[in-house]
């Protein structure tokens, strides 16, 4: 897709621009999908006015509204950390998008040999943004939300990494394009438990319902977002949708074969990737609508008693099958 023979700086600019555009549009599309899918699942219509046709411009209108709001910093807040937190919460997702392959033959902003490692490490930084917001707000609800978020991070990072390790073992590489290259359809069955665990742990990582204990608006006002207003609040919301895109994209690349489709992989690889990303995003929204929030003890129990042992068993299975196939 990227034409050859460009000067190096132009190619870099083009790749960065493509990632930036994807980063700014995909979360909005997912957000709109959430508005509409959730509404229809609850027998409503959702936004109908903004943009005249079925409320397609609702999120843009929301953004304009957030821009106009006053940017309040609480008097007792740790000002620098408070103001930095939204950026720390959002930027990791932008960085993750850089290494996600969209199509075959290096259609990726920056192929990395240790792409999987990079993705897991950087995505973990996003949680730091939440902890910063929780601590710097000088608000007990925010702090409680932050504590819950930290506990959730500790519990779910482990199954996430174990599930990702399973697919890396199966492919024999940490490079994301390499994993997609090595992927075969029967892996859907072989890696199914890892896929489910990765998806669930990913949901918990981005604090989506039913794992939104750190926000829990019925108990904690709005958790670590309580003191945020205006554009900084909007950035956190954008981070949530960007998180959905990233988790869906990772699930797609690691477990669903990335750009592999029923036909025309060479030309339409990017389309298959997008279709799969949106399908997984739809499941994220679907799960949100269907299930109530997990209690804190249920949350921890699910991670330590269910997910971690299953992930370890999956690792064993992956190792055994891998050895059997390659002997």
């Amino acid at each position, binding site marked *: 897709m990227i034409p050859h023979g460009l000067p190096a700086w132009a190619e870099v600019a083009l790749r960065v621009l493509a990632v930036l555009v994807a980063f700014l549009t995909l979360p909005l599309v997912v957000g709109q999908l959430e508005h509409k899918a959730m509404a229809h699942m*609850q*027998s409503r*219509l959702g936004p109908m006015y903004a943009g005249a046709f079925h409320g397609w411009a609702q999120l843009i209108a929301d953004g304009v509204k957030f821009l106009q709001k006053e940017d309040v910093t609480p008097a007792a807040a740790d000002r620098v950390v408070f103001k930095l937190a939204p950026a720390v919460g959002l930027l990791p997702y932008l960085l993750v998008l850089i290494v996600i392959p969209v199509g075959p033959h290096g259609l990726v902003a920056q192929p990395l040999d240790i792409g999987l490692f990079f993705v897991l490490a950087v995505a973990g930084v996003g949680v730091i943004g939440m902890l910063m917001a929780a601590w710097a707000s000088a608000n007990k609800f925010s702090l409680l939300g932050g504590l819950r978020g930290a506990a959730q991070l500790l519990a779910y990072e482990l199954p996430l990494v174990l599930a990702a390790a399973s697919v890396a073992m199966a492919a024999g590489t940490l490079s994301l394009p390499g994993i997609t290259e090595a992927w075969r359809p029967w892996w859907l069955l072989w890696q199914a438990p890892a896929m489910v665990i990765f998806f669930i742990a990913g949901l918990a990582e981005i604090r989506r319902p039913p794992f939104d204990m750190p926000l829990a608006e019925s108990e904690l006002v709005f958790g670590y977002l309580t003191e945020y207003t205006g554009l900084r609040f909007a950035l956190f919301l954008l981070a949530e949708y960007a998180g959905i895109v990233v988790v869906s994209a990772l699930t797609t690349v690691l477990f669903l074969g990335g750009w592999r489709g029923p036909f025309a992989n060479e030309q339409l690889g990017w389309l298959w990737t997008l279709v799969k990303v949106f399908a997984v995003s739809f499941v994220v929204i*679907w*799960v949100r609508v*269907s299930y109530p929030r997990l209690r804190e003890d249920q949350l921890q129990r699910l991670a330590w008693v269910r997910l971690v042992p299953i992930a370890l068993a999956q690792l064993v299975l992956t190792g055994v099958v891998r050895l059997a196939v390659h002997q």
Partner: protein
Amino acid sequence: MSGLPGGGLARGLAITLRTMTRRSHTQQYPDVPPDLPPRSRGVIALFDENCTVCMLCARECPDWCIYIDSHKETIQVEGAARPRSRNVLDRFAIDFALCMYCGICIEVCPFDALFWSPEFEYSEYDIGELTHEKDRLREWMWTVPPPPALDPLAEPPKEVVAANALDAAPVGEAE
């Protein structure tokens, strides 16, 4: 309850997905007017030509939201020994801020001067504006629908029975 582990979770997902494929129940009110049932109670209309200022409606009204002022006029009829007097309606107002839409005034009116109209879009920014005076109540008359058709096999209306009896009676006795 279901046998398989996770069966309940799957059922939850199925319910939301099924709801998504069905039509939503949202009424897009300002864009699409609601489909009101017959005999909807929206606003009370006054056919003031029929009103005789008998005051029955004002007296029966449970929350005293009907205001009536009138005066008497005398009419000299040729050949009559004394002038005849009759009531003239000066003011007829219904305060829809007080009205509870019970419809007793309409039931009690012996001269068919009050009617239900299904119009309901008359909200105001000032509560005082909700008192509709005679002219405005008269304007609502144009929105009063014809009475809905009778159910099959229903008894004929009393007025029709009376009129038919009148036609059948010999001339001279009908008085």
